[in-house]
């Protein structure tokens, strides 16, 4: 009987990678978008096992609640319903798989041959420490990040709005 942490890791990584495979290979864009949910949840669970509990919650809130909803909106607004069956065609699968295999072999070789200075730590909650870090040593990047979000929000509204002409503007 393997320990519960190994089982948990297997379940989470299986969820993340299985859903990612659906994202990569499904022929229906809605299936792809919904499968991204499983990837996000699996990665959020792995954050929590790596003692990044705040990031796990943030991942669920921001990605699942925000980004995925946005993507589904875009899918519904742009894909035509009648050709929904093959709404996500692929091309160049052979060269793609070849290049990805090369990249994975390279990454695996680097990860396996480098002597990482592994230092086993106990898993501790880190939300309070992260909050203190954001309000002390990382204050400036934090503020810049909020300005970036504001700019992106305004930009998205400006880009996506329809130019509506009122009656008195048409003349």
């Amino acid at each position, binding site marked *: 009987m*393997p320990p519960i*942490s*190994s089982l948990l*890791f297997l379940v989470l*990584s299986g969820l993340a*990678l299985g859903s*990612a*495979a659906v*994202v*990569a290979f499904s022929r229906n864009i809605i299936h*792809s*978008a919904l499968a*991204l949910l499983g*990837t*996000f949840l699996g*990665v959020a669970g*792995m954050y929590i096992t790596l*003692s*990044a509990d705040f*990031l796990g919650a*943030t*991942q669920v809130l*921001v*990605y699942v609640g*925000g*980004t995925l909803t*946005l*993507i589904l909106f*875009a899918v519904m607004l*742009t*894909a035509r319903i009648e050709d929904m069956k093959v709404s*996500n*065609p692929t*091309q*160049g*699968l052979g*060269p793609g*798989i070849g*290049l*990805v295999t090369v990249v*994975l072999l390279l*990454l*695996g070789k680097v*990860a*396996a041959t480098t002597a*990482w200075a592994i*230092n086993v*730590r106990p898993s501790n909650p880190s939300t309070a*420490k*992260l909050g203190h870090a*954001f309000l002390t040593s*990382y204050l400036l990047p934090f503020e810049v*990040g909020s300005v970036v*979000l504001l700019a*992106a929000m305004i*930009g*998205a*509204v400006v*880009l*996506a709005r329809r130019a509506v002409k009122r009656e008195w503007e048409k003349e």
Partner: protein
Amino acid sequence: MEIGLVHYLTVGAVLFGLGLLTVMTRKNSVGILLGVELILNAAALNFIAFEHFVVGGLGGQVFTVFIIVLAAAEAAIALAIVLNVYRNYRSIMADRLTTLRN
């Protein structure tokens, strides 16, 4: 079996590979965006794994917060652009947007 750094790196690498494959082979612009999200998640997972097993401290988590923030901003802007492209071309397949060719 003890779960260590290499296991998390493997998951991150495979996630990255699947994201790369999605970006390279999809024609649908929204599908390409889904691949970008996969790649960003793989990078963030690597940051957290290295922080937990090798470096310590909080730098990896701080960086991952910024990855999540920038991914949200990128998704909002990119989807606004996709909506505009659809309005102008009636299609978001990347191989049909050839106005700038030649």
